[in-house]
């Protein structure tokens, strides 16, 4: 990797960050909505949900819920890159980007990292709220959780980039990611631990392979370690590897798609 490559990567990341800055109002609204969710709804839900008895260990549902809802936000916001990329394609920006003196691989990686960072930064205020509500947390857990959240955002961006550029249709993008967003979050451990889901076998199997479950349970294991470890969907190492593998896999997919398949035109 030479200096030019790094420069191009940096500029592509800058492109996505600029995009995000323009949405300051949108970001603020999402954060406010998040705060309402974790305070009003979260507390109400916690009052209703009785995990004790159904679980082998004693887990505070509210803390469980906090990390779940943060994960779902991280996922939704990363998925929403799809609409940005679709808009760029519709306005012909992708054609402009494809004409620039940047290699296709660097373009794919740059947009994946840039989109990932932008989505991740987007959720940082929410993450801060979560930390504040969790009260005493250790620094190590914070650092590892932030890195895994960033990696997760990048994998979702890589996936989204590959799919949007292959679909080449604004409508198809809207439908596909709208469905994916709501479905995948529900079919995960965002709201219920895997052991509770085990009563509904098909539901459980999806939740077990669902990346959202892995990142949600990984974050929980980091912050609620002792209590949670027993009911997480996999061991911490397995979940971390899954998240890392996903990031590598989906950025490679993005590279492959952009290098071999993507061309301008054919959108409208």
């Amino acid at each position, binding site marked *: 990797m030479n200096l030019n490559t790094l*420069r*191009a990567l940096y*500029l592509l990341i*800058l*492109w996505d960050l*600029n995009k995000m800055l*323009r949405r300051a109002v949108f970001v603020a609204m999402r954060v406010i909505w998040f705060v309402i969710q974790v305070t009003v709804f979260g507390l109400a839900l916690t009052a209703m949900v009785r995990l004790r008895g159904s679980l082998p260990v004693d887990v505070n549902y509210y803390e469980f819920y906090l990390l779940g809802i943060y994960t779902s936000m991280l996922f939704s916001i990363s998925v929403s890159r799809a609409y940005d990329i679709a*808009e*760029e394609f519709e*306005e*012909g*920006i992708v*054609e*402009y980007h*494809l*004409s*620039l*003196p*940047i*290699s*296709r691989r660097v373009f794919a990686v740059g947009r994946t990292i840039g989109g990932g960072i932008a989505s991740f930064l987007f959720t940082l205020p929410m993450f801060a709220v979560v930390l504040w509500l969790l009260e005493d947390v250790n620094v190590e857990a914070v650092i590892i959780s932030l890195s895994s959240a960033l990696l997760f955002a990048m994998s979702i961006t890589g996936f989204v980039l590959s799919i949007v550029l292959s679909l080449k249709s604004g409508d198809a993008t809207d439908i596909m990611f709208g469905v994916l967003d709501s479905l995948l979050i529900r079919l995960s451990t965002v709201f219920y631990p895997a052991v509770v889901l085990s009563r509904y076998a098909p539901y459980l199997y999806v939740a077990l392979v669902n990346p959202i479950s892995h990142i949600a349970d990984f974050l929980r294991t980091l912050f609620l370690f002792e209590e949670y470890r027993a009911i997480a969907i996999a061991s911490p190492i397995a979940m971390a590897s899954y998240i890392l593998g996903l990031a590598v896999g989906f950025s490679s997919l993005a590279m492959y798609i952009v290098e071999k398949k993507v*061309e*301008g*035109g*054919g959108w409208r």
Partner: protein
Amino acid sequence: MEVAVKIRKLVKRFGNTVAVDSLDLDINEGEIFGLLGPNGSGKTTTLLIISTVYKPTSGEVYVYGHDVIREGDVVRKYVGIAFQEPKALWVDKPYELLLWHARVVGYSTSEAREVVKNVMEVLGLWEHRNKYFYQLSGGTRKKVEIAKVLIQKPKIAIFDEPTAQVDVISKHALWDAIRELRTQGSTVIIATNDMFEAERMCERIAIIYKGKLKALGTVEELKDSIPEGDIVELMLDGDENTYLRAEDLLKQYGKTVRSNDSLKIFLNKGEERAIEILDLLKSRGFKIRKIMVKEPSLDDVFFYMTGAKLKEG
């Protein structure tokens, strides 16, 4: 003379539409080359293939010997394109957009600021630098698009209908800037359907129609390439009968078109023939009021080559 862009048997299909149909073309280093053709003739498609944005369906395109498919990364280092439709989001601002562009094409941040300011001033864009794109007029948006290539100074500078939507004064500024770019070492390719622009700017022109190459050469060569390329127009003293007799006499020179008060002969090398015609008519006792030799305009060539009828006069 080195060939900057070599196009061989290029075909591009979109579904059932054949946008480019077995096109062969060489564009030489350092020239200003024009792609002339009516709407939908495949100009933009060809340019986007050269810039690696579209992939050819079949055939080959080389930029300085580098294949646009296999060596796209290398090709993109040579080519810069100003798109027909300005590429920006509604909420983009010209200065930011151009600054980012300048840095991507290799300027350091401080160099970028300088070159962007210079180009924006030349094109009269500086006062619009911090407006949103949706606030800009069509012509101004177009200038921002052109500015990208002027900033980039690529070895091969492509302009897709650069002055469409641009006012007359700005047109001249743009043309000057594009010529200056060539002086500084760029090969320039311009797609246009503006005859005046083609004639003023382009040293060689390819006329394409329905994706096929119909004619290639300098403006002069193109005009001469039409059989019956020049027009000799005569006005005679006399009545209809006089014109009838004259037409009979002059048919041997080429296609004639007679109206009530003039006679036109479509022929080649009009200047030489006009003298012969003059002598012949005088020797037969015709009284000549006026004789003119007219070149067909590029318009005429265009109509001729693209299958439309040669206009009369």
